[in-house]
């Protein structure tokens, strides 16, 4: 039906979107199609697959350090086979342990949950859901992927150098990061980390700037801001966050590079190394923390907001109900965006910050609970009495809500300046952010993969394997992270190499063994996903036009991808994207492209947004067509 309608308009001159100067008449070669592609759909796939590979690597790293935590006194000869001198005698060295936690964090936060998540879904969905041929600048978009790719390569290359990767933690606080001779990981590995991050920030900025420009300038006819799906709102605000916060990290990194390589003292003062007193004077490492967390805190929302947007869409589609509180959802995203810039101090409560200032940061932090709770309740209200379809995507979206609640609650503890004195840098923090931004965001990402896989590859994923993947991952994630809260409450610090070295930590060894087994289970569960993903790309069932009976625009584009997304004219949008189970309509969904004139039996007064003429037409029609009872 839809494609017929589109085909009939082929001859029409496309007036709305003429911003694709380079479409249509260029020849596609293998290189321009798969490698240096400028098509947003291909770039999305590149981001996704690179992100998946990085996620697998980072997960592998976490298993390695979990083995060390669970069995600090045992030898595992296979580790030496793989890692050589970093696991001499089958035991992971302490230096390498620090490198593992650092690179695990860096990859997961930046490469998987920022680039892998935003890069994939912003690229795929922004043009398809707002009705554009491609991004504002396809060339910049291509560069964005290749900068990201180079950043990945540089980051991974640090595993192949003598001194090993950066190991001062993913926040790379000076002086560890500023003095190349401080620890092995402060040497070349740290330099590579900084180079990689500069490439990454460049990639992120090119991407983000493109997303914002595309959303503001290239929406199809009828797609006003309040008719955009919540996914687009989330990607839009995420991109704005990135544009406003990443440059500050660049500023911080530039100063750090000068401290490292040219001998300036921006972050350094009064340092004695071994027996030598360093000449650096007058700097302050706390200033790095300010600059870093001014990015770092918005960064965690850069990670979670796209996931929230994706689950809004998935939950609404699979509950067959309009999203509860669409406007409230948007305003709460805006609220989170704004607030995220004035809370960075809660990472620094114990740096000797003025208690009054700590109080201010505490209040702003706790206020973030309000928009977050609005979102949570809206998800639950959308699910409430919905006609729920438990697709794998839906399960993962519900999983996100679960993690967002259980991880968010502990945020209220940590945001409290006085409680933070006890909890700072303990496993409580680790448990908190692994639930609320780690697990929640990765579940959002997986929900997106299962939901839009048919759009990306034109194939369906296997649902049964999806269920297996979900339940194993969901249970294992709780088994891994829930016990860590108790370690934290007992004061066990994060990033410690061997629990056997401290009397009060010894009792937690058994818990560590349990957590490690749960982590191994979680890692094995991902095999189900990886197999399903790659197998379905080639051998999956061919996807129908609109597999989830969804309203948004991307499902009107042909299954077979073409450069420019729609043949002929881009469809016009007439209504918001959440007309599910609208009373009076025969189907339980009405795509955005269906005008109100075709759904007279289900129109409601507020659909016309005060347009008196349309209301009059509707009233006349209702008088002429009295409601027939048993309509169902």
């Amino acid at each position: 039906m839809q494609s017929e309608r589109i085909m009939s308009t082929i001859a029409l001159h496309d007036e709305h979107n003429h911003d694709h100067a380079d479409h249509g008449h260029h020849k596609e070669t293998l290189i321009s199609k798969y490698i240096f592609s400028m098509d947003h759909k291909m770039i999305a796939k590149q981001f996704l697959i690179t992100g998946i590979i990085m996620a697998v690597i980072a997960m592998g790293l976490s298993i390695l350090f979990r083995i060390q935590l669970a069995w600090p006194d045992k030898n595992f000869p296979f580790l030496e086979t793989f890692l050589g001198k970093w696991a001499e005698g089958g035991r992971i060295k302490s230096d390498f342990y620090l490198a593992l936690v650092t690179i695990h964090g860096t990859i997961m936060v930046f490469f998987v949950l920022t680039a892998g998540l935003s890069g994939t879904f912003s690229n795929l969905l922004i043009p398809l859901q707002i009705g554009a041929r491609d991004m504002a600048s396809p060339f910049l978009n291509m560069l964005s992927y290749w900068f990201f790719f180079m950043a990945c390569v540089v980051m991974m290359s640090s595993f192949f150098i003598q001194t090993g990767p950066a190991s001062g933690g993913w926040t790379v606080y000076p002086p560890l990061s500023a003095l190349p001779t401080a620890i092995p990981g402060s040497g070349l590995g740290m330099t590579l980390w900084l180079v990689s991050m500069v490439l990454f920030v460049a990639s992120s900025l090119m991407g983000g700037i493109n997303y914002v420009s595309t959303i503001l300038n290239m929406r199809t006819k009828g797609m006003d801001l309040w008719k955009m799906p919540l996914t687009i709102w989330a990607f839009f605000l995420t991109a704005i966050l990135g544009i406003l916060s990443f440059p500050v990290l660049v500023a911080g990194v530039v100063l750090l590079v000068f401290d490292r390589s040219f001998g300036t003292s921006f972050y350094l003062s009064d340092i004695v190394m071994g027996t030598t007193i360093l000449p650096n004077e007058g700097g302050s490492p706390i200033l790095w923390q300010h600059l870093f967390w001014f990015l770092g805190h918005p960064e965690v929302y850069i990670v979670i907001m796209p996931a929230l947007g994706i689950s809004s869409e998935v939950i609404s589609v699979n509950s067959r109900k309009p999203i509860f509180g669409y406007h409230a959802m948007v305003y709460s995203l805006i609220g989170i965006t704004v607030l995220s810039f004035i809370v960075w101090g809660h990472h620094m409560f114990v740096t000797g910050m003025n208690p009054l200032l700590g109080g201010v940061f505490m209040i702003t932090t706790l206020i973030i609970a309000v928009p977050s709770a609005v979102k949570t309740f809206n998800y639950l209200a959308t699910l409430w009495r919905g006609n729920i379809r438990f697709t794998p995507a839906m399960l993962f979206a519900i999983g996100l809500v679960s993690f967002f609640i259980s991880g968010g609650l502990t945020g209220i503890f940590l945001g409290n300046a006085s409680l933070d004195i006890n909890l700072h840098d303990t496993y409580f923090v680790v448990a908190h952010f692994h639930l609320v931004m780690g697990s929640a965001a990765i579940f959002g990402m997986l929900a997106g993969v299962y939901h839009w896989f048919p759009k990306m590859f034109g194939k369906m994923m296997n649902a049964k394997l999806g269920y297996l993947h979900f339940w194993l991952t969901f249970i294992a994630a709780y088994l891994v992270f829930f016990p860590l809260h108790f370690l934290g409450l007992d004061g066990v610090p994060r990033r410690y190499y061997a629990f056997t070295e401290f009397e009060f930590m010894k009792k937690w060894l058994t818990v560590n063994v349990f957590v490690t087994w749960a982590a191994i289970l979680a890692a094995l569960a991902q095999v189900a996903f990886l197999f399903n993903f790659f197998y379905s790309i080639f051998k999956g069932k061919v996807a129908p036009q609109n597999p989830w009976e969804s309203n948004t625009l991307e499902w009107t584009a042909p299954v077979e991808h073409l450069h420019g997304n729609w043949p002929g004219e881009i469809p016009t949008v007439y209504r918001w994207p959440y007309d599910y189970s609208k009373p009076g309509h025969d189907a339980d969904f009405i795509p955005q492209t269906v005008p109100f004139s075709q759904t007279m039996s289900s129109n409601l007064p507020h659909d016309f947004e005060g347009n008196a003429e349309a209301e009059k037409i509707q009233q006349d029609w209702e008088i002429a067509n009295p409601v027939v009872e048993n309509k169902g």
Partner: protein
Amino acid sequence: MILAMANIQDTFDPKPRKFIVWLFVVSSTIMFGGFTSYYLVFAASKGKGHGLVLPDAFIYSSLVIIASSITLMLASRALRKLNFSLQRRMLWITVVLAISFGFMQFNAWGSMVKTGATLVGNNAAISFIYIVSGMHLLHIIAGVALIISTLVGSYKNIPLVKSQFRMEIASIFWHFIDILWIYLYVFLLLNR
């Protein structure tokens, strides 16, 4: 379907791309905001700034960059009146002014070094002057590249929409880095 694609008119819409430049301006502003807030917090916590009398070369370079903005504005106006030879002349003058701006910055650094206010030292506020003016100079290089691409377009007779687009992008960016330098200079003057 391929036929259908060919039917789509290829016209050039500069609006989203121009918007990209504006967004870049925003993010660059934020970066310098990050630098200057580092300076403010540093100066407040240590109770001292750079404490220098800034070299005269910075005054001259400020005047030169203001002049370059004016010549660039004249180039835009010439293009609007379709006076291509005047546009080219003005663009060339802008490029020359831009390059002399760069020389003056180096000159300023040189005279700072002579007075002992070097990049590497115990006052991060002094190192800071080198960093921000250096980062700004990187922007100048990008700006010159944009102006040269406008010039190249002008000589190659590309379509008028495109050459206007290049001119506009170069103008947005160049006026931005002009204002940015004035901001940095005044900031350094006020926060000694």
